[in-house]
């Protein structure tokens, strides 16, 4: 395999890993606070839709009038794609809030709530898309301004000529959308917040022993809701990246199970930020490899497409069975907090 192919595969790895990573970190915050979230998929999906929908509407809208108030000046405050991002984050946070209502305030079953919200997102996105755009549950294709452009890092072109380093810098490191860099930056940030700040200490504590937090005079409910806000933001970014970064619009079910893979990555990462990065990159790599080498001819026989397609999943099982062993989740995960002495 030559360097170029390698770079291409890794490049593709980064793109495929980014939504996983954002969702995985989102799940990390939620589960570290003791709220199991299998609704990552739904949050990403609804964020993907609203970011694309709002970006599309802002790019085409001439003026903004809301309830008779002229708001056009607002529109020019940010590019359409940023408005899209905001909308995506807001939508994802609404779902997050619903999840909080069910699992924190009303001490409901967190798994059910997650399942329900996934269904809700899957239905609502297409329903609204149909009512708004009548394009069969998709948004119009986004034009320039409605999408995150790829960023060329400084000196990328100048350095391209340098052997090995040049192409790696110019093709692999440079040339991604801002959200990719944001996702990568979110890893050390998450680590820092979790392990170096007061908020992180409390967050980790509330996922392990909410009664300890409660008796220490800190609000369990408040902490858990705050973690869900972060989850909402990160899932919103993940969705926006799918629809307005990688793609130019929303298509029904476009998350295609990535929320579940992110959950797998989270367990694989044992709920730790740096491990999450490696886990997501690994999953991204597996997918990238499977995408590229579909007709793998081993000389003796040809590996069927189906095997390559299922390879990331098979390897996940093998890795979980062989190397990770028992992953111990935050102890209070999944259980609503009820005061007792």
């Amino acid at each position, binding site marked *: 395999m030559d360097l170029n192919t390698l770079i291409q595969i890794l490049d593709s790895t980064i793109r495929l890993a980014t939504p996983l990573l954002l969702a995985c970190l989102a799940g990390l915050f939620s589960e570290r606070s003791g709220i199991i979230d299998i609704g990552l998929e739904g949050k990403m999906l609804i964020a993907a839709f609203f970011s694309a929908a709002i970006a599309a509407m802002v790019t085409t809208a001439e003026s903004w009038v809301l309830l008779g108030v002229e708001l056009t000046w607002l529109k020019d405050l940010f590019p359409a794609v940023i408005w899209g991002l905001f909308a995506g984050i807001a939508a994802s946070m609404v779902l997050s809030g619903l999840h909080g209502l069910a699992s924190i305030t009303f001490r409901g079953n967190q798994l059910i709530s997650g399942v329900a919200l996934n269904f809700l997102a899957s239905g609502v996105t297409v329903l609204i898309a149909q009512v708004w755009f009548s394009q069969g549950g998709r948004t119009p294709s986004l034009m320039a301004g409605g999408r995150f452009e790829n960023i060329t890092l400084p000196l990328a072109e100048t350095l391209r000529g340098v052997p090995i380093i040049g192409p790696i810098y110019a093709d692999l490191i440079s040339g991604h959308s801002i959200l990719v860099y944001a996702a990568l930056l979110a890893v050390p940030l998450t680590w820092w917040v979790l392990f170096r700040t007061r908020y992180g200490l409390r967050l980790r504590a509330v996922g392990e022993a909410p009664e300890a937090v409660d008796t220490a005079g800190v609000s369990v409910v408040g902490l858990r809701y705050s973690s869900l806000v972060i989850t909402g933001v990160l899932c919103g970014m993940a969705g926006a990246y799918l629809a307005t970064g990688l793609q130019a619009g929303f298509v029904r079910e476009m998350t295609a199970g990535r929320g579940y893979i992110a959950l797998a990555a989270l367990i694989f990462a044992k709920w730790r930020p740096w491990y999450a990065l490696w886990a997501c990159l690994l999953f991204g790599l597996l997918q990238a490899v499977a995408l590229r080498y579909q007709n793998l001819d081993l000389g003796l026989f040809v590996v069927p497409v189906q095997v390559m397609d299922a390879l990331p*999943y098979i390897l996940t*099982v093998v890795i979980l069975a062989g190397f990770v062993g028992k992953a111990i989740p935050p102890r209070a995960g999944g259980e609503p907090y009820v005061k007792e002495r």
Partner: protein
Amino acid sequence: MDRMPAWADAVLVPLISILLAALVSALVILAIGENPVEALSLMIDGALMRSTGWGYTLYYTTNFIFTGLCVAVAFHARMFNIGGEGQAMIGGLGVALACLFIPWPHWTLALVGATVAAAAFGAAWAFVPAYLQARRGSHIVITTIMFNFIAAAVLNYVLVNILRPAGAMDPATASFPAATHLPTFQDMFATAGNPLFRGSPANITFFIAVLACVLVWLLIWRTRLGYEIRAFGHSESAARYAGISPVRITVLAMLISGGLAGLMAINTTMGEAERLVMNATEGAGFIGIAVALMGRSHPVGVFLAALLFGFLYQGGAELALWTNIPRELITVIQALVILFTGALDNMVRMPLERIFMAFGKGTR
């Protein structure tokens, strides 16, 4: 301490929750510019007011009973089996092999054979995640999700490359021989003068599903194995103390769970399509999660929840037939039903408890 009579908890809470879900659904329908009353009457009319409607409702119900029981049994052992979908797919493979390659003389025998095959294949597919969980501590949620994807790939390979009749376009097996065709409700109940259930897919498998409910109830609440499964689900350390092997229970519970999911394939594959198609499960494995959760993992609850979802599926199909409401509306309604009855049930329960307590104090 119980603050509310059992009947209120079992009947009143879900009922009010469903009403709330219906109310919000109505708002959604209004929001997309349609008439909720009309929509509901269309759904009821199509799903419950004619025998064919019931034929479809009960067909879907049958699927959901099996997948619901699948999730419920695993839940009792405190395992979250998300793999019903994959287990049902592979169960379908078992049914197809049994029907295609064994020359059955009569459908009754074929049904027995297919039942065994479906359960065995579904159980086998659940075995690996169960074993990995028991022996290696691999998280069952993740492994079963992965096994869903892998099952789809296996089925795709088998259908596209092996079982597909030469020249056929469909990734599907050949039609099963006539001797394996199961009696439908139409065959069983329609008379010359009264063409009941015409063309609807509900078939004898429904009764197997009902039987499965009874058997699961007996298993969980009347047998030693069920006693051990529940004990293990409540407390692994106590189970160890009592001499209940965690490995054995994990594996057995998952085998039963997977077997139940596999049985669903009899309904779709042998009963309805009479051949194995690619997407025979259609997400019923996931609906099963909602059904089990709503049904509180109790067979009676599972049956009722399955019926509700069967109604939603069939009513939704009718809605799509006669109105311009996008089919995703049904997904939204399902989501709301799950949300209100499953996750937000305390929103109803808490005020109800307060009301009951106020009354209780008065009479005491």
